[in-house]
């Protein structure tokens, strides 16, 4: 089999595997009842969508809030993750293994344990029930991903390009914007994508730290999913997957970027 045919088939299979589970959700969102053994619903209705977009359901507000929290978490995670990843990726220093372990810890420790412990601390700090508290909480599972991805990016980063720019008179911020950033951008995009999606899909941390007052979309979705309202669940789920898809599409072309500074270093 020729390689490009194989790739096409693999691509289509992957796309179907990702999209097929969503088809029943999409159908449910327009169904007025859908009972076995009907292949398709007998009656169709826009009621679920009307409810999802009504002020009562709060879905539109939740969507904006969830977007804001995920975006803020991503930016903050990048601010921590890029310098940390650079240090881990480029430098060998005493205690590096321990630092890596500490960074990984939130990804290893079960989320429920983190959430329970964190709740008590945040409560005393007056951070529960606030958006800022929820963003801080989201940073805990997000920062390990961001840092580790950036560490792997920087481990194949050639710092002599920065040296060259500096020797040509570039100031530190110019070096960063014109040399470092373009080189690490694909990796940063992947890190940001992970950060965004990890924050976007948080349920437990948002519920415990937000105390129900920070009503993100996963919370609204779960309320309906757990009460058997498949039509409303379907409509909210369709809205819920949109930003993830958009972010993926927008960043996809950056993910395969190549850059001269990102070549494995060769010993001189």
């Amino acid at each position, binding site marked *: 089999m020729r390689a490009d045919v194989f790739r096409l088939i693999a691509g289509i299979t992957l796309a179907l595997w990702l999209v097929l589970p969503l088809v029943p959700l999409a159908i449910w969102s327009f169904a007025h*009842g859908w009972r076995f053994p009907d292949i398709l619903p007998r009656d169709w209705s826009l009621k679920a969508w009307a409810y999802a977009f009504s002020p009562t359901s709060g879905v539109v507000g939740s969507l904006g809030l969830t977007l804001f929290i995920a975006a803020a978490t991503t930016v903050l995670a990048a601010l921590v993750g890029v310098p940390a990843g650079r240090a881990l990726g480029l430098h060998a220093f005493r205690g590096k293994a321990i630092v890596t372990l500490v960074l990984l810890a939130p990804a290893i420790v079960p989320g429920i344990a983190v959430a329970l412990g964190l709740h008590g601390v945040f409560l*005393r700090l007056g951070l529960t029930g606030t958006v800022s508290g929820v963003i801080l909480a989201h940073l805990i599972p997000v920062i390990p991903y961001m840092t580790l991805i950036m560490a792997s990016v920087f481990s194949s980063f050639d710092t002599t390009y920065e040296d060259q720019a500096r020797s040509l008179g570039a100031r530190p911020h110019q070096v960063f914007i014109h040399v470092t950033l373009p080189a690490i951008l694909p990796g940063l995009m992947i890190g940001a994508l992970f950060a965004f999606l990890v924050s976007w899909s948080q349920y437990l941390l948002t519920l415990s730290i937000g105390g129900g007052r920070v009503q993100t979309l996963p919370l609204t979705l779960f*309320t309906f999913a757990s009460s058997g309202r498949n039509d409303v669940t379907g409509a909210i789920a369709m809205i819920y997957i949109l930003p993830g898809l958009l972010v993926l599409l927008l960043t996809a072309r950056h993910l395969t970027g190549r850059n001269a500074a990102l070549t494995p270093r060769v010993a001189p």
Partner: protein
Amino acid sequence: MLRSLAAFLLLSTAAVADTADGEALKGLTWDQVVEQARGGTVNWFMWGGADNINQYVSDHIGGILKRDHGITLNRIGVADAVEVVNIVLSEKEAGVTDAGTVDLIWINGENFRSMKQADLAFCGYTDLLPNNLLVNWDNPAISNDFGVPVDGCEVPWNTVQFAFAHDSAVLPEPPRSMADLLDWIKANPGQFTYPAPPDFTGSVFVRHVFYHAAGGADALLGPFDQARFDDAAAKTWAILNEIEPFLWREGQTYPNTIVQMNELFANGEVAFTFNYDPAQFGLAVQAGIYPESTRSFGLTDGTIGNTNYTLIPFNSPNKAAAMVVQNLLLSGEAQLEKAKPEVWGASPAIEISRTAADVQAGFAAIEGHASVVSAEELAKAALPELQADWLTAIEAGWKANVGN
């Protein structure tokens, strides 16, 4: 959208401890409470899985509060009230005594017992509410919440009574007593099941079998009694184990939640579902989930009823506004609105005979949903709920003897 974001961010800094001092409120007249409540915000945490109920609360009740009292009602949907109990509990443990997150909870049963035992409820103020006069506190089913005395710690909102639903197009004549139902299950293998306790609804089904095995509820009322429990429990487990091979999937597995069982019923896999709140059947038919031919019924030997309530946590910073909400919920007009089948179909928690003439006429004019057995019909054979200790023992016993 930006404005709501800004509002959320502001919440993090704004100090809103205006009417947290419940004892001071108790010394006021109702008019003074209403005045204090003006401009307040009430964070009402409630089960949010029904769009009709959400719309009634947010649009109807929220609209009146805004218009008449300048109160903002912030309905917060949760999947289970126990989440809210945990919020208040951890706030108490952390010493948050006057700036809690929760101003009002829709609650009953074990969650109420937890809150009362841990002193998490604001109590002793209900006489202040003018519409409290509409409540018949002499009715033990109102003044006790699953056997726990209410003691002015919560305000009734709805009354419900357990009922079964069936598809009349498939099964025109369902069994009407527990004995007949048990025979029917054995004669129709694979068509019946119940959610495994401690699911709220599965647990109440098992209690019906328990009452049947005990020969009625009378011997089981009052505090937990081990000897009486053992006697009835042995018979109950025998009955449930006897029908087990005739259940859905030969009883090898049980639905985990009532939601799963509702889905089995909707798809015709089982012949019955049941619910503590028969209004849910009507809502499910309106949402297209159940067939139009769905009908519901009680048992001739009676079905268990209960009351659900709203409760103000001890650390709510908006107690005055929350009291105004409770008073509005109790009003004849608000109870009438939610009794309409297209709105919710919930049975009132007040005495209709004590309401104004036009409200009484409104109640008389309500035509119930065809799928919902009327509250009057069910009330002909009503059984009381047991105290919480019995419930825990039955749930544990089921797990050890039947669901093993």
